[in-house]
Structures are given as C-alpha cells and as structure tokens.
C-alpha cells in the first residue's frame, strides 16, 4: 500500500469516535428491539383480551346450539347468567362458505399458478400475473358488490351460500395463484427433466411429479388463503346476509362467525357473545397458521 494512503487511514481511524459510534449502534438496536416488542405485545394483547373476555361463554352449547334471540339474552343478562345458546349456525355457515369457496378457488388457482410457472416468460403470463395482483388489491366490499350483481341478483335470486362462496373464492384466487407459482419454482428442474427423460407425457409430469413434489407448498398456500378469508365480513353482508338457523342449502342465505360477531355487536344484549365468537375465530385462524408453518417446516427437513 502507498505510504501516504496508509497515513491518511491512520489519521482517519484516530479521529473516529468509537464511543459515539457504539452509542449510535446501541441506540439503533434499542429502537429496533422496542418496535419488535410493541408488535409482539399487540398480538399478545389481542389474544389475551379475547381469552379473558370470552372464555366464560365457551362451553359445550356454544358449539352445539344456534345463536340465541335477543330476549333470551336479555333475560340471562338480567339474572347475571351467561347467555344461552351458541354460534352453531355461524360455525356451520363459515365451514360451508369457506369449503365451497375452496372447492372453487383451489382448482382454478392451482391450474393458473402452474400455467404461470410453465410459461414464466411469455407475455400472456405477465398479463395474467398483473391482473391477479390487481385482483388481490380489490377491496373486499367491492368484491361483495360485484358478486351481489352477478350471483345474488341474477343466479340465486336472493342472498345465498353460493354467492358468499363466490365472493370468498375471488379473494382466495390471487393468493393461491401466487403461492402455487412460488412453490412450483422451488421444485428442482432436474426432477422435471428426469420425468420427461422417461418419456412421461406432459400432463403426467405435472400431476405425478410437480404437484407431489411441491405439495406442502401448495397446502401451505391454500391454508393461508383460507385463513385470510375466514374473517371476511363485508362481502358476506352483501352476498349471504345471515341466517338464524343452520342451513345447508346452497341457494339459501347462511350465517358465518364474522357475521354473527357483527350482529352481536349491534345488539346491546348480546355484547358478551362478541368476545367468545372472536376468540373462536382467532383460534381457528391461529390453528391454520400453525398448521401451515408445521407443514412448511416438515418439508424443509426433508
């Protein structure tokens, strides 16, 4: 090294205030830590509040009976008892809505995701990818309005499970498309080539090699999409409205847990049921999240 450069370096090192520098970096670290702690405590506060306020309403009848009417709730409140009944109509409705939405969105999403992966550089693929991103950004209330026009008015002539499911499916679609494409990309090309070199027809390469090899990624994506729409309320208000009893008819309105929460919120006698229902919904979403993390972790060990 040139001796003059060496001199300059030495001078530079001598004038750097190490004390100040380490103070700055410690300050920075503290701020990061603080923000992280705030985020974590928000999550724990949410769960804590729901548990504390909601646990005493959760019992066997909470899962086996439909929502009470406001009179029964008022009587129970007056005598200091817990509110009778449960949210069975909401639970079955949510399962039905999300189940049907998955049946619609999963095949579509996976097929389009595979198409995007297989034709990654083609122009159509880019257009579809952009459209899917736009779809993901459409506000859920707008999705509800559109489905109201298409399905409620024109097809089922009234609020229905089908309409609610279509709305949820539209919201799941871009999530599944993206996660399918991403998990297909994780499959090594050499596996695909190995299958092709065995003379395997194209569709079987996809069905027997690509999909099984990326299966855990696909499942994870679907679970996250499900947990994303599980709590949707606005589009359901416009498409399936609600129902005070259990309904399995796809052409009829149905309740859902978030719809019940909205109803309970609007009825002063039912306020206590908000918390237990929210706790249930939160628990469900958390379970799906943990499940998808577990599946993803199991895959990475392989």
């Amino acid at each position: 090294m040139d001796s003059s450069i060496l001199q300059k370096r030495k001078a530079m090192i001598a004038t750097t205030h190490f004390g100040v520098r380490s103070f700055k970096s410690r300050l920075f670290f503290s701020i990061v830590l603080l923000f992280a702690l705030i985020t974590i405590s928000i999550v724990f506060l949410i769960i804590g509040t729901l548990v504390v306020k909601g646990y005493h309403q959760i019992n066997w009848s909470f899962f086996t009976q439909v929502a009470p009417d406001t009179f029964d709730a008022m009587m129970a409140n007056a005598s200091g008892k817990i509110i009778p009944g449960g949210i069975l109509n909401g639970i079955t409705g949510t399962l039905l809505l999300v189940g049907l939405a998955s049946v619609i969105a999963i095949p579509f999403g996976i097929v389009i995701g595979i198409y995007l992966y297989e034709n990654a550089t083609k122009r159509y693929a880019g257009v579809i990818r952009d459209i899917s991103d736009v779809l993901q950004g459409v506000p859920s209330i707008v999705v509800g309005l559109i489905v109201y026009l298409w399905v409620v008015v024109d097809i089922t002539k009234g609020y229905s499970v089908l309409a609610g499911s279509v709305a949820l499916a539209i919201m799941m679609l871009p999530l599944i498309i993206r996660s399918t494409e991403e998990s297909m990309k994780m499959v090594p090309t050499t596996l695909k080539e190995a299958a092709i070199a065995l003379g395997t027809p194209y569709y079987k390469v996809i069905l027997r090699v690509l999909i099984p090899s990326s299966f855990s990624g696909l499942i994870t994506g679907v679970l996250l999409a499900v947990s994303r729409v599980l709590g949707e309320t606005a589009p359901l208000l416009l498409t399936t409205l609600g129902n005070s009893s259990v309904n399995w008819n796809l052409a009829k309105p149905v309740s859902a847990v978030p719809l019940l929460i909205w109803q309970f919120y609007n009825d002063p006698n039912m306020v206590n049921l908000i918390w237990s229902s929210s706790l249930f919904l939160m628990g469900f979403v958390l379970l799906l999240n943990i499940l998808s993390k577990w599946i993803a972790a199991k895959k990475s060990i392989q």
Partner: protein
Amino acid sequence: MAPAASILSIEDLSIAYDRDKYAVKNVTATVRKNAITAIMGPSGCGKTTLLRAINRMHELYPNISTEGKIKLYGDNIYEMPTIELRRKIGMVFQRPNPFPTMSIYENVIAGYKLNGIHLKRSERDEIVETTLRDVTLWDEVKNALHKKGTFLSGGQQQRLCVARALAFKPEIILLDEPTSALDPVSTAKIEDLLVELKQHYTIILVTHNMSQAARISDNSMFMYLGELIEYEDTKTMFTNPKDPRTEGYLTGKFG
C-alpha cells in the same frame, strides 16, 4: 471411421440457441452398438447440447433450432414421437435426481408408473430386483426398498438413477458427467457399472475427466466450439491425436 455395428448415426447436425448462436455445428458421427462412447471437450463446447439432442431433451429450451438428422437404427428420431424415443434412449443426469416423493422401489419403476403402464405385482418385483442387481445396488437397499430414495448416499442415488433409466430396457443410455458430483469410490463403482452394462446397452457419456474417458470408453469424440474435431478409437486418440487442438486439450494446454 466405420464402426462394426452401428446403432445411431448423427448426420450433419447443427443446433442453435436463439436462432444464430450455434452450440453444435455440422456434427456427423456414427455410434457403435454395445460400446461406450465418450464426448470430451472444454467447457461450453456443446457436449451437453449434443447429448440432449439425442433424446430431444434439448427441445425443452425455448428458441432452439435444430438442423440435420439423427437416426436410430435408420429411423430419424426427429420424426418419432418424443415419448416413444425417450423410452428407447434413457438419460442419467449430472446430479443424482431420484424422485423425492417416491420410495426406492417406486423410483426404479418410475418410468412405468409415470407412463401409466400397469404391471402385475410379480412383474414389478422382478423388474425392481433385477435392475437393482444390474446396478449393484440390490444388496445395499434390499431391506429398505420402501424408504425414500433421497436417504441414500450420492453415489447410491446415482446408481438408483441409472436403474431408473434401465428399467425400461432402453437401447441407449445417455449420461452427462454422471460422476462429477461424486467421491472417487462412488465414481469407481459407476465406472465399473458402465463397463458391465455395455454388454447389453449402448452408452454415450459426456465427461470432463480425461482419465475417466481413457479408462472406460471404447471411442471418444473431441468437441471444440461446437465442432466435432476428432472421433476415434479411444486408444488411438489418447496415444496419437490427429488434430493439434485435440492434442492440446489432452495434454492440458487448455480446457
């Protein structure tokens, strides 16, 4: 050079990526049956492209153009259905790539499974055992047939991949640097295996390893910048190369 019994003839084959970027230029050669033919040459000279053209795997790349012919027993492979062709010409890749979702047993018969060819239980067992014996893997895995193939060592996985390619009883097996990811002991096993296999199969092997070509191949091609510079009996090529470029490569002056 006119080999005694030829199985494959490459006739004035040129392959270009992106239309005008030629990776293989006017290659003409006949490949001898039941022999090991090595393809050598410096990196980027077109060995992989030439090899993949033989079972038309090169067509998976976009914008590829192919001129010339390759004939298998006189039939132009570019006029055959690829599916049928690839059953006759098997392939082993540089890195072992058993199907991670399948057991060892299923990997061996993967070709049948993926093509929807139904076999009786006894036929399957028979194919799995004889093929695994052929690749000298049977004794090592016979008690773990239903475990995942990905639990095997790299060398064992590669032999499993050879087994997978053999299960269809192909005419030709193409191998692209099959030992470059393996340790010397596993490499020696694969080499012994290939010498053993040439009694029943024709083997075409891309290798970067000159001593490997010298040890096991019967004929050798030397490629340079997409051209087939020299194609000879391996002994002749190593002892008495005709082209100065071949000599330069073999003596380590470049490559």
